[in-house]
């Protein structure tokens, strides 16, 4: 419990036998990867890029799937680079995961953006196109949290930066952690399923609100790993 009280975690994790949390960022040619790298480094994490199935064998505490671009294109890229199965295994093993923007949409079954293409299919639901006057949605919008997604997100309402033309229609209601309204629809803007966290907005571009969310996720990823190391050592 002290770990969360003591501020950011490199120090607290050290006590559990680790120096820094190592985060792998899946690089499949999507655009906004460097801003995620910058934000995680700012928070003290060690960041490495995951470009192939081999890279997934590295010791990584948490995995980030960022993304800007089309659903079908991203699925193809991940498959061609041999990352698809590794991602599914990671998610099935309930290891710490953060999906951002398209990285959240890819967790669903299908998308109206690319009919006939199957997503990672770890959450029941589909991706739909906004039918608002202005599409994509660009700007800061409100997220009402109905589940606590990190130790720091216990607040009920926060503002985050969004850029997207498609949204997630989630059929697993207990997975929905945050809800946002745009163009006449209320949609899931944050999902939480076990250690999998996914957000439609860009925490890496959402000022302190975003950094706070990332920090909570980082601490969790670091502590999960540190704890399992400790258990392994005791055994």
């Amino acid at each position, binding site marked *: 419990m002290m770990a969360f009280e003591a501020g950011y975690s490199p120090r607290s994790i050290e006590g559990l036998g680790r120096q820094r949390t190592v985060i792998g960022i899946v690089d499949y040619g999507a655009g906004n990867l460097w801003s995620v790298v910058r934000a995680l480094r700012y928070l003290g994490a060690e960041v490495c890029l995951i470009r192939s199935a081999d890279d997934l064998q590295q010791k990584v505490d948490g995995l980030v799937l960022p993304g800007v671009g089309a659903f079908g294109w991203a699925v193809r890229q991940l498959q061609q680079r041999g990352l698809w199965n590794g991602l599914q295994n990671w998610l099935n093993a309930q290891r710490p995961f953060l999906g951002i923007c398209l990285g959240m949409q890819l967790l669903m079954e299908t998308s109206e953006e690319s009919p006939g293409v199957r997503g990672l299919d770890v959450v029941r639901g589909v991706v739909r196109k906004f039918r608002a006057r202005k599409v994509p949605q660009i700007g800061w919008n409100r997220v009402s949290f109905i589940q606590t997604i990190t130790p720091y997100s216990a607040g009920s309402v926060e503002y985050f930066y969004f850029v997207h033309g498609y949204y997630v229609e989630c059929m697993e209601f207990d997975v929905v952690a945050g809800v946002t309204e745009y163009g006449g629809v209320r949609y899931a803007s944050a999902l939480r399923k076990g250690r999998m966290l996914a957000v439609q907005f860009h925490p890496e571009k959402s000022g302190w609100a*975003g950094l706070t969310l990332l920090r909570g996720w980082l601490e969790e990823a670091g502590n999960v790993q540190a704890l399992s190391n400790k258990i392994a050592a005791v055994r």
Partner: protein
Amino acid sequence: MLTVRIIPCLDLHEGKVVKGTHFRNLKVIGDPVQLARHYEAQGADELILLDISATIEGRKTMRVVLERIASEVFIPITAGGGIASLEDMQAVLLAGADKITMCTAALNQPALIEEGAKRFGSQCIVISIDAKRHADTWYAYTHSGKRCSGKPVLEWARECEQLGAGELLINSIDRDGTAQGYDTELIRAVAEVVSIPVIASSGGAHPEHALAAVRAGADAVLLASALHTGKYTVADFKWYLAEAGIPVRPVSSDRKMRT
């Protein structure tokens, strides 16, 4: 509900933020990194960085500044000034910008908008339109407002959207530096013909100017002198808009992180 964005604009010259009208009476305002941090703390929703020297040296300096800002200020950053090729776009995006903005190059080579949108995504491409009124219509200008392109603004705005621009930054040459408020007729006219976000620029000096621009259809307002002089803070603008019932991102939600 989507909030209206307040965007401070930092004009860069030789590594410093400056203010002046069309290169005349340039006055140094301060260090760009410090100002970026300062405005973010005040609740700025985004930042725009413009290299007004538009020289090779100036662009290099801007990339260094961008890298420094992007590694400690985590809100969207748009960068521009002298961008005229896909390589120029990539360079500023890699340095830490989230979006690029072009004016003259886009008018000279509209295909650049399409290529940029295809390669980096529409959300990266902000087209800046320098508009000047001629009788009852507006024309788009190039070269910092010195040359008329002969293209009517409304036609050009629609064309930008069709080519894949993600947002439009609407400057009024008539209002620039006058502190008389945004050209709301121009903003309204543009916002009516496109369905991408419109950022109002030029002439905004008081919170009531921002409100007028938003009521005319602006999704965001750009501010420079009003903030640089210290006369107002970003929060003053947000407070005024919120009082008028316009949704804004509250400033206080930015400061919850324990350090």
